[in-house]
């Protein structure tokens, strides 16, 4: 076995271990939101670990590109899907609730998208994303693949002009963005380890709670990034946004204020990556 084989083997076994513990967490955790912790963190991160091993062994760049597409999809879809499901379950009377729960203030309106109407999206950006996904899916740079990808992504980008994203503003602040990416990665690892540690606790010592936190970020992409970061970071899954309040499920805590402070810090990091510092006042006034 070569060195690459050994690294791949470690990732495959380690990832499978984390993923299987995520499955076991589904059985052990007391309520549906806590089970989502096991699903989004341990299971997803475990599968991503296996994917890294697969990318090393997948037979060159072509195979690795497909695996990179899978990992990118997992990173976006797993926490997002769970957040949507959690929000639905939050209002479902048949879903058993955690005993300690901040009441959702139904008087507050659901947030309408604010940024979509302010600036127009960029169809070339959409075409570029679609082209990259197309090439990754075929795992090939042959001229016919690129030509067909250009046609398909061009037609789709023109037809779906209304859905086009803007050029990501994070690219303007590479250092802050890299710092956030590093922070995000460390949170993902820490979150997985925390879920696994919590699983070893006796059931009556797992004390889930729903916490309400102020939300200062404004644009849709920032909020989506925050929801994903919260869902991947240790002990929290984002549930619902009402007006400028964020509801977060915490796996086990006795200190809700710590959770709120941590979300505030996360917002600061995201705002820095976008180059739009937040005013501190609204956060401190609530503490």
């Amino acid at each position, binding site marked *: *076995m070569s060195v690459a*084989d050994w690294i*791949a*083997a470690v990732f*495959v*076994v380690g*990832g*499978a*271990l984390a*993923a*299987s*513990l*995520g*499955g*076991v967490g*589904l*059985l052990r955790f007391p309520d*549906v939101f806590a*089970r*989502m912790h*096991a*699903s989004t963190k341990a*299971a*997803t991160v*475990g*599968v991503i670990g*296996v*994917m890294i*091993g*697969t990318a090393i*062994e*997948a*037979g060159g760049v*072509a*195979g690795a590109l*497909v*695996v990179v*597409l*899978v990992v990118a*999809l*997992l990173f976006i*879809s*797993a926490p*997002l*899907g*769970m957040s*949507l*499901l*959690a*929000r*639905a*379950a939050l*209002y*479902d*009377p*048949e*879903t*058993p609730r955690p005993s300690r729960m901040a009441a959702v203030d139904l008087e507050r309106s659901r947030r309408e998208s604010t940024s979509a109407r302010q600036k127009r999206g960029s169809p070339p950006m959409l075409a570029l994303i679609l082209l990259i996904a197309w090439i990754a*899916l075929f*795992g090939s740079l042959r001229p016919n693949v690129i030509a067909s990808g250009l046609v398909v992504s061009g037609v789709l980008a023109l037809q779906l002009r209304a859905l086009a994203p803007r050029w990501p503003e994070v690219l303007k602040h590479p250092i802050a963005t890299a710092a956030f990416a590093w922070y995000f990665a460390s949170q993902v690892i820490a979150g997985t380890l925390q879920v696994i540690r919590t699983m070893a606790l006796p059931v009556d010592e797992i004390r889930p709670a729903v916490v309400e936190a102020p939300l200062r970020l404004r644009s849709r992409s920032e909020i989506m990034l925050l929801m994903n970061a919260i869902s991947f970071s240790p002990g929290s899954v984002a549930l619902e946004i009402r007006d400028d309040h964020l509801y977060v499920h915490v796996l086990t805590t006795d200190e809700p204020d710590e959770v709120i402070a941590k979300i505030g810090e996360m917002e600061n990091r995201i705002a820095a990556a976008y180059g739009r510092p937040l005013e501190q006042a609204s956060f401190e006034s609530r503490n």
Partner: protein
Amino acid sequence: MILATTIATVLLIVGGAAALVRAVRGPSVADRMVAVDTLLHLGVGGIGVYIVRSGDTTYLPLMVVAVVIAFIGTIVVARYIEAETKR
């Protein structure tokens, strides 16, 4: 590599069995959907382990399909629960 993939397969089967038990027991629709979503993700891991073990890359695109199906399934069920709640 045969040993590593064998261990990984057994681990994934254990996790998948636990998720399956949760999917059958429920109690709520959301519980079942979380379990099924996890099961699909573990299945993606299983395909990855198979690729590492055999070196056969035929099933690579299947992983993309499984992840997308898991995501769409979760959203559909979330919408279903919301629709049921409103009535």
